């Protein structure tokens, strides 16, 4: 079963003369452990796709399913719980709360979900440890480098038992080495069963995905085939 499924999802903003079609009948299914990258020029609908997939916005038509559950049939409270428990977000500008330490940022969603402060903190520390950030747990965001902040954001996105990671230009503010480290972490989360959708205009980041889809004017216009093994790169005259 897909972790995330979009069925003929359309999103229209405004009406009449000011109507803008951000998404037009988009179908997308992302299974457990799978990473899908979405590429496209600005204004192609990439960010709308992500906010709708994360239930932050409702589609104008079509259906969104997370873990098999139809978002349209969920109450406001159920949606809020789903967002806290099952979906993790990673943004270009990290979106960490400046007044909270790294571990508090990571454990906050669990605490909001009713877990005791002690348990939430323990889970937060585990998530930070997995991303090699245990020694930064007590630091505030402004005491961390850009790469460390993004790692904290990834820890927050996968803390607890989150199964869907949605990332909007996660490497946009990072240099290429740090960007690669961040993509490796997302890949690592996928190897542990997380489904990820990464919106990016950067081909190097997108190339970490199992599948890259191309969005233009709100439509999926193309997608890559599953890559053959790397040995094909070493065959004489391959791909040239």
């Amino acid at each position, binding site marked *: 079963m897909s972790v995330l499924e979009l069925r003929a999802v359309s999103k229209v903003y405004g009406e009449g003369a000011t109507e803008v079609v951000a998404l037009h009948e988009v179908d997308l299914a992302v299974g457990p452990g799978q990473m899908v990258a979405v590429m496209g020029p600005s204004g192609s609908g990439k960010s709308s796709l992500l906010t709708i997939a994360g239930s932050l916005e409702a589609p104008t038509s079509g259906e969104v399913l997370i873990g098999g559950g139809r978002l349209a049939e969920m109450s406001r409270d159920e949606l809020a719980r789903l967002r806290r428990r099952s979906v993790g977000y990673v943004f270009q500008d990290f979106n960490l709360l400046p007044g909270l330490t790294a571990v508090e940022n990571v454990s906050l969603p669990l605490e909001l979900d009713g877990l005791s402060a002690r348990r939430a903190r323990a889970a937060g520390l585990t998530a930070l440890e997995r991303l090699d950030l245990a020694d930064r747990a007590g630091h505030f965001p402004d005491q961390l480098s850009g790469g460390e902040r993004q790692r904290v954001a990834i820890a927050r996105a996968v803390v607890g038992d989150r199964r869907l990671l949605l990332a909007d230009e996660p490497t946009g503010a990072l240099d290429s080495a740090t960007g690669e480290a961040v993509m*490796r972490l997302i*890949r690592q989360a996928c190897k542990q069963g997380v489904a990820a959708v990464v919106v990016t205009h950067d081909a190097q980041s*997108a190339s970490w*995905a199992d599948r890259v889809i191309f969005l233009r004017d709100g439509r999926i216009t*193309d*997608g*890559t085939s599953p890559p053959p093994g*790397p040995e094909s790169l070493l065959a004489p005259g391959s791909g040239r």
Partner: protein
Amino acid sequence: MSIRHALLALLAEGPKYGLQLREEFESRTGEVWPLNVGQVYTTLQRLERDGLVESDGEPEGPQKSFRLTEGGAGELAEWLRTPPDLAAPPRDELVIKVLVAVRLPGVDVHEVIQAHRRYLVELMQQWTRLKDDEAEFDLSLALVVDAELFRLDSVIRWLDAADGRIRRAPAEAPPGKPAVALRRRIGVRR
């Protein structure tokens, strides 16, 4: 990189046999550049003829050992600092295909661009997978893979820029001879 200079570089570390040179060449280029032993011996013969390496005088075969001469060391130092010719004229095949597609009636240039973009991203996925699968860190391989990824990435960036530029361009470009003008402006050799 020329095989000639790669062999000089390996011999700069000390005398070596032909087979050993081949193995080390392959491992240092991240094993993405297979070399046959015939190429190694032919190149070594030429280097010896030019006075850049010398052998211990054994007959041709696996026992024959080679070492760098002073002239060889000078040649290697000069080669390292000589920039490769990146000032080649813009005759890239992909650029030409896009230039043709943009003028050809009945052809959707954006579709042509997308076909190339998809292919390049697929190629990058394969290189990245190689990096991801590599259990042990291999510096040579990492450097070679990065070089390929940056090169392919730059081509995709150009395609993205071209795609946008073509969309913004007026439907009918004014007549002219841009190729001639460009050649004159950047002084490309014919």
